């Protein structure tokens, strides 16, 4: 397998199972893209070879455990934060709200959003409840606090689990400036008192995460989140208009359009053509980057990846600041 195309085609339509010649390669690719759990759910009823069925069953068990652990961690954060509203983001949000995007999804850190004016209180509450700084370095700390959309990462001293406390969904240095207050104000309460972003914001956060925050590493999983969310919410009346308005509000309209086009090309997601806009010549480059994983789980296409890596830093900060940042990083003793 030269790239991850078969994996994405199979996720989109499990009936293509008959096309699989190299299960070992497919499973390896899926693991490397953190999509084995999702694939396992998609193929739950498919007549796969017995050995594959056993591997997929393990992956489903693993995902079930990841879910339990993530929800427990959210519970711990809720207890620590008291009256501060706990807005769950990404994987934990999908799990807590029982969304299809959460099925089989691996969940690493706990990502939460806290209104900016309550950030200091939240930080103090978490530190008092046993979370500790991961990075002791003064430069990193200052960098996070000045230029990032989240606190420096915290880890719990007993449970060894990380929490990322966001106050918005993109770094302040990035060109689009999402409306952070709107994210919090329009969030939705779950029965247990935790909150999640409204559907349109949830999708736009996944979009922001896919493009602006990183070099598209793990992009296939992020795009899969977008596919699952779109399929789940697009059936509601007036969804596409709301998504368009919300994208404008968060200055993410072109990003959303690109994500829609990529989701359609990679996962055959049904999308709104006017919001997606006309195909752009660079879409193919994005697809080439997203699928750059071979049947041995290795990253391929180094020059394409390098291009996106440079681009990710370019988008994150202005050139002079980037130069200063990279210089400081390079001079730091390991």
């Amino acid at each position, binding site marked *: 397998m030269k790239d991850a195309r078969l994996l994405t085609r199979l996720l989109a339509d499990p009936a293509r199972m008959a096309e699989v010649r190299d*299960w*070992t390669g497919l*499973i*390896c690719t899926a693991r490397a893209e953190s999509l084995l759990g999702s694939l396992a759910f998609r193929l739950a009823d498919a007549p796969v070879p017995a*050995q594959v069925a056993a*591997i997929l069953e*393990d992956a489903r068990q*693993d995902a079930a455990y990841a879910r339990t652990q993530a929800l427990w961690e959210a519970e711990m954060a809720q207890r620590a934060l008291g009256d501060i509203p706990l807005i769950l983001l990404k994987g934990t949000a999908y799990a807590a709200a029982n969304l299809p995007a959460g099925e089989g999804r691996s969940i690493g850190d706990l990502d939460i959003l806290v209104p900016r004016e309550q950030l200091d209180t939240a930080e103090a509450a978490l530190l008092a409840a046993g979370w500790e700084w991961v990075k002791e370095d003064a430069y990193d700390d200052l960098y996070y606090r000045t230029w990032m959309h989240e606190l420096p990462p915290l880890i719990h001293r007993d449970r060894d689990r990380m929490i990322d406390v966001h106050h918005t969904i993109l770094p302040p240095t990035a060109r689009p400036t999402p409306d952070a207050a709107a994210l919090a104000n329009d969030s939705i309460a779950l029965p247990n008192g935790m909150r999640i972003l409204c559907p349109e914001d949830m999708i736009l956060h996944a979009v922001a995460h896919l493009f602006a925050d990183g070099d598209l590493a793990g992009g296939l999983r992020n795009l899969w989140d977008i596919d699952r969310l779109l399929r789940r919410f697009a059936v509601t009346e007036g969804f596409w208009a709301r998504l368009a308005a919300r994208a404008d509000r968060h200055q993410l309209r072109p990003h959303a359009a690109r994500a829609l086009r990529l989701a359609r090309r990679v996962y055959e997601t049904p999308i709104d053509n006017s919001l997606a806009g006309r195909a752009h010549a660079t879409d193919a480059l994005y697809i080439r980057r997203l699928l750059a994983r071979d049947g*041995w*789980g290795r990253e391929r296409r180094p020059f394409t990846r390098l291009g996106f890596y440079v681009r990710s830093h370019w988008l994150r900060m202005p050139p002079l600041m980037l130069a200063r940042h990279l210089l400081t990083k390079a001079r730091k003793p390991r």
Partner: protein
Amino acid sequence: MRHRLDLTIGPVSFRIGSAWPQPIAQLAALYAPYPKPAGIADFTVRLEPEKPWRRLVRPSVAIHGDYTLPDAAPLPLAQGLLAAEMGMNLQMALGQKRFLLLHAATVERDGHALLLTGHSGAGKSTLAAMLGEAGWRFLGDEFALLDPVTGLIHPFPRAISLKNQSLALFDSAAPDRLGPVLKGTPKGTIRHLRPPADAIARMAEPARPALILFPRFNRDFEPETRPVGAAETFVRLTQASTNYVALGRPGFDALTRLVTVTPSFAIDYRSGEEAAALIDTLWSNAT
């Protein structure tokens, strides 16, 4: 990858890829009599250079795969066989979810399994290898695979990793069973020994655990056996397991059942013969 070998060991199958021919050739020789996998591997191991040019210039073998440790130091190409073995261990330690993994050597007699567990250097591998040559069936020297559903131990008879002074004890083994002597590894001098033929032929046969031992080797010890309570055994085995936490409730239930029905003892010994005598006595009481 340029070079590839697929291996089935007990209930687990691996696909091992390498940028160099040597590790695959050594692995193929060591595991020659093992059955070939039916076609699908549970885990993939990759032995590859950290940077493309390190394939030829001062070649060094980084251990990658489905599961990778971010900070693991690469090994020189001369230790490529060890890298392959470590790669397989890593996939098991981080990726295995079907069985509760106990860091223990295991041997079997009359359908019953004896688990030898304890810290590195306690002599587990050597004891299991010796017992495997002396009437016991060798099940494994690294991981005991406890099936949470049946409570049985599944064999995982990988090549035995002999370390330092233990090498000399197996000089008389058939030459084709021995791998190359690997000097200067992170664990000293290492040589791999292929398990006896019956261990390989019967590697699909699980066994019911009957006795757990915590051996300690020291030339200055008086030989001694002490019973170990179920609670202590439980805690020590959670520490000896790489996936106890990841298995959640089934792991807890399986381990609780194991320690409540299986007697367990600590033994101190000065030589292999002494250990064998202590084990014989405890074994006849336990089974």
